[in-house]
Every structure is written in C-alpha cells, then in structure tokens.
C-alpha cells in the first residue's frame, strides 16, 4: 500500500502531522512527532528519487480523477531531488531546534512553532510534488503563511516589521502568480502543467500568454528573492529565530527556484521563453548583478546573519545564472547548486544559531575569540564557509565547477570569469568572520565559562550537514547523477513538446 501512495506521502505526512502536533499538548512530544514525521517524509523522498532515477516519472491522481479534471501529483527526478534536500534539511533543523527553540522562543509558543514548521514543510513539499498550476498557488500560500508566522516568532521586535514586509511582498508575488496562471488558464482552459505545456504551444506568440509568463516570472522572482525584488529577504532572515533562518534559508528560496524551473521548462518551454522572449538575457544580467551587488552588501554588514542573508541572495544569483545559460549543463549546475547551497547555508546558519545560543547576539564583534571557546561550532562554520567560497573538496567547488564549465561550453567566458570573481567577494565576507573568531580574543568582561560548546542536539545536525558538505564535495555521484538526470529530463521534455501539436493550430 505504501508503494502505491509513495508520491503522496511526502506531502500528506506533514500535512496531517500539523494538526496532530497542535493537539498533543506537550512541547517535547510535539518535537518528537514533528521530527519523526519529517524523518519519514525524508525516507519517502529518498525512495521517490530512486524510483524516478530508475523509471523516469511518477503520477498520482488525487481523488482518483484523471489529470486535466482532477489534481495530479507528478514527480520526476528534478522535484524528487529538491524534495530530498528539503525534507532532509527539515529533519535536521527539527533535531537542532529542540534546544535552540527552547532558548529563543517563549515556552507557550513551542507547540505553535512546531505546527507552523510542519505546515511550512507541507507547503513546500506540496509545491514540489504538485502537477497542477493552481494547486501550486495554494501550497505556496500555506508555506508562506507558515513562514510569516515562523519569522515573527523571534523575541526581537524587528522581526515584526521584517515579517510584515515579507507578508506584503510575498502576497503581491502570490497575486502576480495568480494573475499569470489566470491568463494561461484563460487561453488554454486547463490548469494541469503537462496539459498546459501542450496547449500553450497552440498559441505560439499570444500576447496573453506572454503577459502571463511575465507575471508568473515577477511573482516567482519575488518569492525567490531575485535581485531587485529581494528586499524582503535580508531583514526576514536576520531577525527570524535561528532555527527558522536555518530552515528557510536552505529550503524556501530553493523551492521557488524550482518553481521557476518548472514554469520555464515544463510549462512554457525553454525554447519559447529564451529564444522568443529573450528572457535568458534578462535573467543573466539580474543574476550577475545579484552576485556582485549582494556579495558586496554582505561584506559591509555587521550582523553575521545579515551577511549570510545577503550571501543567500547572491547564491540565488548563481542558480538563476545556471538556468539562464539555457543548456542541460547549465540547468544541471543550477540544480546541483540548489542542493549544495541548502547544505552550506543550513550548516552556516545552524552555527550562527549556536553562537546566538551562547552569546546572545550575532554581531561581528560577538564572534571574537569563539574559535577557542566554541571549537566545534566554529570548525563547522569554517568548513561550511569554505564551501560557500568554493574551495576544492567542498560542495561549493562542485557547483561552481559545473557552472563555469557550462558557461565555457557555450564559449561564454565572461560569465565564467564573473562567477570566479564573485567567489573572491565571498572570501572577504567569510574571511571577516573567521578573522574575528580565530585571531581575536574574547571581549573583556565576558565570562569564559558562559561561552562554551552548545548541546549535542545542536552540534550533531550541524556536523551532519558539514560532513555532507565534504562528502558530496568528494563523492559527487549521487548529486550529479540526480541533477543531470533531472536536467536531461526537463530539457528534453521541454524541447520535444513543441512540434508535435503544431498542426492543431486553429
């Protein structure tokens, strides 16, 4: 029975767990339920990835209604790959959050925290597995609402304004997506993604469809913090509780990148988006500007969480750059970076959360001397930081390697050089933190007894991610296999659907 419903499990488990978590009443029990459910979802995602790598794609008709009439869950290598990253990170963050949350969030809100986390996970998985454009909007809103809640749980009052800004921009983004999907629906009469992709090609250059595309792109652009629309991200990540930042930074924007890939490649067709509308140039310019502007912004910030938040926007630039290269290799680089960046940022934000746990704030000067007093935390931070920079033997290197080689394949040496230059800025902003941690002394007046290593429940998940950073930097077979299969699948299906329906043009 479980195999039959495998496709539905990663979303049903957290969806049903969310109300149960609220009902169990005790926060330790809630934590246990949430972690277990998230772990099961991870196993399901893993099974799905294996199945998809072996046999292409999977479809599940919810309610037993066939696709264009009912809602279909459709899983292929691409979303199974991202799904695995999201569920795995969620599980690790949940383990981590037991102590972190106990410290940062008032005790009567723990249940709400775990419920919101489950809702967020359910929303993100739903976005990933659904094969229906409107259903995607619904799950996008579930995850967004849960995210606003999670961000506003911090005790610092600035989280409120950050959450509000996020809410307004996020809702505008979602509404834009709604407008875009409406225009597509109006022209094609269907909401199912595969059906849409077939029928959109009947109207090769319809203004309505192009406008719909533009609105979806802007809407998704807001959600994934594409450069000029990223204004909500740094404050939200800075002021959210540590566990929340670790989860969101490594999953939420990645899922949005996936949505962009899905819309470009599966629904509209890469050929139409890039060749007819010239979207690749726009995306490429925005991505490059994002890499430089935001990496620069990261170097001048004082709050370490803000540094990493700007770094996230820059890293999203790399992913979008991969998409904008319009080749299977570029897309693969983008997908690998989605996975790898989740590993790096998860580890980094967990380390920062550990510092917050002991020191109580995460400004640059608070990191002074921590190399000595919190050795494991800072060692983890250092390794993950090296990964962001792109040092060999880490996953960051793998991402950049594939990105650069994809760019060079096309003879686009300019992009290749820019990617490498962007890494130099990463050296600066990570370097500043490491310098404070290892080459400066603990500030006067701090009790060294207070600043010690964090509990194991926080260290272990952090180090699992750090080790994953190294492992997947050396043995790349899993990530590259999955990403290249996904990229191949997306790219081929995107190209072939164009000619076969051309004759049906009315």
């Amino acid at each position, binding site marked *: 029975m479980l195999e039959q419903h495998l496709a539905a499990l990663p979303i049903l488990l957290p969806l049903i767990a969310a109300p149960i978590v*609220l009902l169990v009443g005790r926060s330790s029990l809630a934590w246990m339920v949430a972690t277990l459910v998230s772990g099961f979802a991870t196993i399901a995602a893993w099974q799905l990835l294996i199945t998809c790598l072996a046999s292409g794609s999977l479809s599940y008709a919810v*309610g037993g209604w066939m696709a264009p009439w009912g809602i279909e869950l459709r899983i292929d290598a691409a979303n199974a790959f991202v799904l695995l990253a999201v569920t795995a990170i969620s599980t690790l963050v949940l383990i981590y959050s037991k102590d972190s949350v106990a410290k940062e969030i008032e005790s009567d809100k723990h249940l709400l925290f775990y419920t919101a986390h489950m*809702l967020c996970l359910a929303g993100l998985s739903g976005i990933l597995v659904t094969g229906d454009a409107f259903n995607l909007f619904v799950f996008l809103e579930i995850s967004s*609402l849960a995210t606003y809640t999670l961000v506003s749980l911090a005790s610092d009052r600035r989280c409120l304004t950050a959450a509000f800004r996020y809410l307004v921009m996020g809702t505008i983004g979602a509404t834009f997506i709604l407008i875009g999907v409406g225009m597509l629906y109006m022209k094609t009469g269907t909401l199912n993604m595969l059906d849409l992709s077939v029928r959109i090609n009947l109207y090769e250059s319809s203004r309505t469809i192009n406008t719909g595309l533009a609105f979806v792109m802007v809407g998704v652009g807001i959600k994934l913090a594409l450069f000029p629309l990223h204004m909500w991200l740094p404050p939200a990540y800075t002021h959210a509780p540590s566990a929340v930042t670790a989860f969101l930074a490594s999953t939420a924007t990645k899922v949005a990148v996936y949505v962009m890939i899905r819309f470009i490649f599966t629904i509209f067709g890469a050929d139409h988006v890039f060749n007819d509308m010239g979207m690749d140039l726009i995306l490429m310019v925005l991505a490059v500007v994002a890499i430089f502007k935001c990496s620069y912004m990261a170097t001048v910030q004082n709050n370490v969480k803000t540094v990493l938040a700007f770094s996230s926007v820059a890293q999203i630039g790399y992913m979008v750059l991969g998409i904008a290269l319009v080749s299977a290799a570029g897309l693969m680089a983008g997908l690998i970076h989605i996975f790898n960046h989740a590993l790096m940022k998860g580890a980094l934000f967990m380390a920062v959360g550990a510092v917050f746990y002991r020191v109580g704030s995460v400004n640059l000067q608070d990191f002074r001397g921590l190399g000595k007093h919190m050795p494991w935390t800072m060692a983890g931070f250092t390794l993950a930081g090296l990964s962001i920079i792109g040092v060999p033997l880490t996953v960051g290197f793998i991402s950049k390697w594939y990105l650069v080689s994809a760019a060079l394949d096309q003879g686009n040496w300019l992009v290749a050089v820019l990617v490498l230059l962007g890494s130099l800025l990463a050296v600066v902003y990570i370097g500043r933190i490491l310098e404070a941690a290892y080459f400066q002394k603990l500030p006067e007046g701090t009790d060294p007894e207070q600043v010690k290593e964090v509990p194991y429940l926080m260290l272990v998940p952090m180090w699992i991610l750090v080790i994953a950073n190294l492992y997947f930097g050396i043995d790349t077979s899993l990530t590259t296999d999955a990403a290249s299969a996904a990229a191949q699948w997306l790219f081929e299906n995107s190209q072939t659907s164009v000619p076969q329906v051309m004759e049906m043009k009315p």
Partner: protein
Amino acid sequence: MAVLIDLVLLSMLALTALRIIFLKDLFAVVMLFGIYSFLSALIFINLDAVDVAFTEAAVGAGISTVLMLSTLALTGRKEKESKHSSILPFLVVTVTGAALIYGTIDMPPFGDANNPIHQHVAPRYIEQSPVEVGLPNMVTSVLASYRGFDTLGETVVVFAAMIGVLTLLSVRRKEDDEAPDSGLKSHRVLHVVAKIIIPFVILFALYVQFHGDYGPGGGFQAGVIAAAAIILYALVFGLPMALRVISPKFLQILAPLGVLLYASVGIYSMFMGGNFLDYNKLAHDPVHGQHYGIIIIELGVGITVFAVMLSIFYAFASQAERRNVS
C-alpha cells in the same frame, strides 16, 4: 440588461476604489472597503458565480471588515501625510497596468461560449458531474471531489492563519476581571434583538452547511456564518460573555479536528484501495460514496472555518479589550 447592471456596478467599484486612495481617514477606508466587497460580490452574482458571491460577502465584507475595525481601534484612525513622492509607485502601477492591458488584447472575448475554457476540462464538470458525483451544484462537486485536494489545502491555509494569529496575539482570559464588562451595554434594544436573531443565524448556518450540495453554500460559508453569529454575540454582550459560551481552548482543539476529519476521509479511502480522497471507494455504489465523502469533508471544512474565524476574532477583540482596561 446584464451588461447594463455590470457596467453600473463596475463604475461604482471604480468610484469606491479611487476614493479609497485619497481618503486619509482610515475608518472611512475600511467602510468603503466593506462596500467594495459588497459590490464585487454583486458582480459575482451578476456573472453567475453565486457561491463565490456568498463567500465574498461573508468573508470580505464581514470578517475582514470586523478585523480591520478592531485593528483600527488599537492603531488609531488617521493616516499621516507621507513625504514620499508618489511618482515611483505610480510608474510601477502604470507599467504593470499597461502590461495587463497589452495582455487583454489577445484574450478570448468576454462571455463567448466558444472560449477555450468552456471547451476544455469544464464540459466534463458540467455534463458529467451530476451523474458521476450526483450533486446538482457543480461548484460543490468540483470543489469537494474533482479538486478536493485544493480544498484540503484551503482548509489547511485557514488553519495556518489561526496558527499565525495565535502566535502573534494570545487570547487572555480575564478570570478575575474587575474590568468593566464591555459590550454595547447601554443599547438595550440591541440586546433584545440580538437574542432573537442569533438562534436563527445559527439555524441558517446549518441550512447552508447541509444545503450546499443543492444550492449556493457549503462548509466554508456555513462556518463563517456560524462564527458571525457568535461574533455578533460578543459584540453586543461583550467578549467575556462570549468567552464563557465558547472558550478559546475549545476552539483550538476544534480547528485541528476539522482538518483531521477532512484528511481522515482521504486516509480511509486509501485503506479501501483507492487513491487519497477517492470517495468512490467509500461505499459500494460510487455515487453514494461521493455523497458520503462530500458531506463529511464539508463538515470538516465547516468545523475548521468556524473555529478558526472565531478564534481569530477572539484574539483581535481581546487585544482591544486589554487596551481598554489599561
């Protein structure tokens, strides 16, 4: 005739929307927003979307307005002059609007029966759903059965809203209140009238809940109306009285139970060998199965929506009361 009504309503909407831009009195903004919702619901009726009109009237004009008013009670009712230039927003809006107008040029003409959306997918709903699902109201059939997963998502969204609001605003029960029990105390007529109509409103909510298969209505609308009845009670007799009738703790148990009731139908159908939410498997006769499934999930939706709307109102209202005391 329909076109004429449509035009008149649209111009009233435009007037209202434009007026809202320039009003600095937030109370007036909220009032006009209520009118805007009412008007758009009228447009929905005129465009045959009776279920949508039902919901928009209850939610947009009802719940949203009440929530906005209780927010205003805490934040004050004047918008201050902004020194920003309004040129940049105007530019953004003009560009977006121009893009949309550009997009409309190729749209299928308004109301044409040959439009793609009337040719693909929807014909099955219109022709088959009375047979396959067995309900006269196609909207309910599509909502609860064909796109039941969306509706589960919708219920979860409502649930997520409750989680969000409770996180931000906690409902404090004033057990030992020496606070003046508020409510529209001096309005004796209101008290009598409210006592008369509240039972009828709850009766009406039940009617909407179970008549949704045959006419406009369903779990969502019923939940909102039932919540509205209690909200009316709280407004007239004061929040402490309402808290005594239905306690927030109870609502916090009720809301997740509704979601679980919905999901359990799906799980059950999985055990009966179907896919998630496949109501055909619930009984020997598929149409009966559909019927059972829809009744139960509508009940789940109704319970959740009632509990959530009411606890959101409690959370907002108790903030206002707290300020009143201090």
